């Protein structure tokens, strides 16, 4: 038992089971001994739970707000209805149905399965579109594409009566097959398990990283499109199963079955509970079902005269929508992350029953790596008439620490951005040459996508800190290790745990990155870059905002970390005490050109460097 609960997947399965049991038993307890209406309510709640978990898989993991999932649900619902309805009935309701559907009648299970396949195919097409439009967390274009889908399906549902039965839709009775709640239970537990496993799967976690910070994720070797695609397909599959069940349970499908009202209901359930948590989604479903039912109950109460008459106005139909809309508004204003942010039952199970974690071995320096060479040659960058870099370049071996200094606006960060693929150079080249078994291997990196550069072995940090704020400290580093394990194969690298201990972050490994103080956040970004097991770590102002004492400490940290993962370092900084202490060689940039290169001593003595900092007056006839 303990072994099960301390293993990752085991505890997740157990947690999913607990979640399922709590929801189902709670529902059954409410339904037992009550009116049949209660039974129907519980059935609806369970179906809604499947639907909301389907939404969670996409919205939660990618952070893209989709209004279109009810469009997918509608496609599935119609497909199911058309396939499952008897031939005779179809001849009456939709006599001119195209595609030869008039002669098809499947059993409900086969109809539902076919509906899932059809919907997933549509989902794939839409997903390709979303990927093409560069959907990212909070991007409006992605939301609009999904909205257009919802309305398109709704329009077709209402107007293409030959296929859909028009405004009245298709009502049917399927006889037998799906008539017990068994299939709902099966679908629900499957949905919970799929969602839970996906959330902790490699692809799911990479998608969450992209959700938290798209740019940082790309600079770490993550291509966001793939995670979104997988999330969408899984999500659409779950949603379409739920849609078939809903249509089956209602006995009818019409344009209004899956439209704005149902979108609102399911979104509120998702948001209230916490969109990043499966437990939260289920909690939201249960909670909103209770609230919904209570208001409905209130609205049905007969009031005969007396003081209660004043209440009449609030008890009319529409109250439910007010409660739903109000809940959404309230949560957006006061608690946008929902009741549970991203907690799952298995977190608790593992802590309660699992084994305590041992503090890992301290970090040892890696054996001297094969030599590699980063050559950046003649890079020129124009920003609409403004020349940010003019034939700038640098050479760095992975056995040294190279510094990049220069006054504000000299082009240091731009150079780093060119090397990491975030800015396109007008001219010049950048090449990473690694020694491999078959001799030196040159890999051109200028012009590559950021995630390709990261996979080639260049890890970077950002001037203004780009952590994944909602993820834990350990998960931040884990994400990098995940990318490394796939794209940076090779020898034994330090474990994530060792790196955390090394950076002094072990004690706070389960805290969210956004809760860290500044110094630790900087350290975390550094460790995260190191966990990519890069050939080079590129640091953009690692000491900015640090006090003198802290930045002196940073010298040792950077050097020790580079040694531990066997990586070279290219570092931009303004703190010359730090740069002088940490670097073997320094390049000085001014006005987009390299004006000096050499050891720290040479740089300090260089008249051009002094001129660049002190201004033309002190420079004399230097240029």
């Amino acid at each position, binding site marked *: 038992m303990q072994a099960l609960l301390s293993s990752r997947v085991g505890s997740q399965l157990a947690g999913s089971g607990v979640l399922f049991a709590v929801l189902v038993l709670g529902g059954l307890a409410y339904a037992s001994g009550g009116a049949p209406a209660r039974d129907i309510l519980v059935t609806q709640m369970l179906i809604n739970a499947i639907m909301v978990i389907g939404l969670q898989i996409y919205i939660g993991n990618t952070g893209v707000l989709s209004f279109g999932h009810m469009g997918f649900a509608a496609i599935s619902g119609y497909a199911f209805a058309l396939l499952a309805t008897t031939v005779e009935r179809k001849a009456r309701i939709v006599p001119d149905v195209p595609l030869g559907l008039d002669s098809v009648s499947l059993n409900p299970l086969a109809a539902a399965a076919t509906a899932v396949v059809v919907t997933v195919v549509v989902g794939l097409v839409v997903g390709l579109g979303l990927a093409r439009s560069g959907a990212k967390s*909070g991007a409006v274009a992605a939301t609009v594409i999904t909205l257009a889908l919802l309305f398109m399906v709704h329009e077709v549902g209402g107007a293409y009566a030959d296929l859909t039965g028009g405004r009245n839709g298709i009502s049917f009775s399927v006889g037998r097959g799906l008539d017990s709640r068994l299939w709902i239970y099966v679908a629900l537990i499957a949905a919970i398990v799929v969602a839970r496993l996906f959330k902790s799967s490699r692809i799911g976690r990479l998608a969450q990283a992209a959700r938290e910070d798209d740019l940082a994720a790309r600079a770490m070797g993550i291509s966001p499109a793939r995670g979104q695609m997988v999330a969408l397909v899984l999500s659409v599959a779950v949603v379409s199963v739920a849609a078939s069940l809903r249509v089956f349970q209602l006995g009818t499908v019409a344009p209004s079955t899956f439209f704005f009202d149902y979108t609102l209901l399911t979104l509120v359930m998702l948001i209230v509970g916490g969109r990043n948590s499966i437990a939260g989604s289920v909690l939201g479903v249960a909670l909103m079902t209770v609230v919904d039912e209570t208001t409905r109950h209130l609205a049905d109460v007969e009031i005969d005269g007396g003081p209660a008459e004043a209440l009449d106005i609030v008890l009319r139909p529409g109250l439910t929508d007010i409660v739903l809309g*109000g809940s959404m508004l309230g949560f*957006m204003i006061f608690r*946008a992350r929902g009741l549970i942010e991203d907690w799952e039952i298995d977190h608790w199970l593992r802590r309660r029953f699992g084994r305590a974690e041992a503090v890992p071995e301290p970090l040892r320096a890696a054996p001297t790596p094969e030599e590699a060479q980063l050559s950046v040659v003649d890079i020129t960058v124009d920003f609409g008439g403004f020349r940010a870099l003019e034939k700038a370049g640098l050479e760095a071996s992975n056995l040294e620490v190279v510094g990049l200094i220069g006054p504000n606006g000299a082009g240091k960060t731009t150079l780093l951005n060119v090397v990491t693929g975030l800015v396109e150079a007008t001219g010049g080249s950048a090449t990473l040459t690694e020694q491999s078994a078959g001799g030196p291997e040159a890999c051109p990196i200028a012009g590559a996508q950021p995630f390709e550069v990261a996979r080639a072995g260049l890890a970077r940090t950002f001037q203004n800190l780009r952590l994944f704020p909602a993820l834990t400290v350990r998960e931040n580093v884990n994400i990098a290790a995940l990318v490394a394990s796939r794209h940076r194969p090779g020898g034994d690298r330090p474990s994530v745990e060792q790196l955390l201990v090394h950076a002094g972050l072990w004690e706070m490994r389960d805290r969210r990155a956004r809760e860290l103080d500044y110094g630790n956040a900087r350290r975390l970004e550094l460790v995260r870059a190191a966990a990519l097991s890069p050939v080079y770590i590129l640091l953009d102002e690692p000491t900015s905002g640090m006090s003198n004492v802290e930045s002196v400490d940073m010298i040792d940290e950077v050097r020790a970390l580079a040694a531990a993962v066997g990586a070279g370092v290219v570092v931009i900084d303004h703190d010359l005490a730090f740069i002088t202490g940490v670097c073997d060689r320094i390049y000085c940039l001014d006005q987009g050109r390299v004006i000096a290169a050499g050891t720290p001593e040479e740089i300090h003595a260089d008249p051009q460097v002094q001129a660049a900092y002190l201004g033309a007056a002190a420079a004399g006839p230097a240029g």
Partner: protein
Amino acid sequence: MIDLVQSLIDGLGRGSIYALLALGIAVIFGVMHMVNFAHGELITVSAYVAFAVGVTAGWGWWAAVPLVFCAAVGTSVAIEFIAFRWVRGSSDFTMLLTSFAVHFLVQAIFVMTMGASVRSFPRPEWADRVWSVGDLNIQVIDVAVIGATAATLAVTVYLLQRTMFGISLRAAAEDFDAARLMGVRSNKVIRRAFILAGALAGIAAIFFLMRTGQARPTTGLSPLLKGILAAIIGGLGNMRGAVYGGLLLGVSEVLLRSWLPEDLVGITDGVVFALIALFFIFRPQGLVYVRSAERV
């Protein structure tokens, strides 16, 4: 050729209303970075005001005109004050859902107080009149809409280009903090943006309601959607783009209606949505796009 001209006139008539709504959505997006899903509710409120004026009070349609306009402006300001003020500067996700929630709340309030049924109110009798010029059949209301929209846009352009209000608004849309450094008050400029958006929606509502003559809780949904799509086609936040987007949407709807095969005419809107989705896939930044550098 005649067909094409006919379609153009019909399309501009439709598109004008979309353009006015889209412009309002763009103005609000400019200052708040929020896609306002509650914008259509201005039309819903206006519709019930028109119903109250025309049926309950029994006045003529001309009396509804100023009141509908005021209702749209008042509602716009009220919604900002009650809801949007509190989520200023939040994530896009939060703001989208906030306006979505307001959309539903307004709708639900009308379901509760007025019921879900359709309420009809009198329309001006000239609204259905048709002028025949040669082979062209021109609806009077189309001419009125196009004229009024042109005038409204002219006034709006004047406001935006020449008055301090317009300059502040554009400055705030471009760089909110820099505008504050110039002395522009955030509350004031946002409130005024909502007044302008409400006024534009008010003009749109007047003609939209003259055409339909109906009020129900979901009245605003369809125009809202077209307005949002038009604003986004034009490149969100781009005011000129929003107007082009609206007109383009109107004209392409009418053209599609005349080009589509008989049995697909019913789903013209569906086809339009599909085309829009396709458009975004290939040009997610919209028609008119102003490049801004991403700070790393």
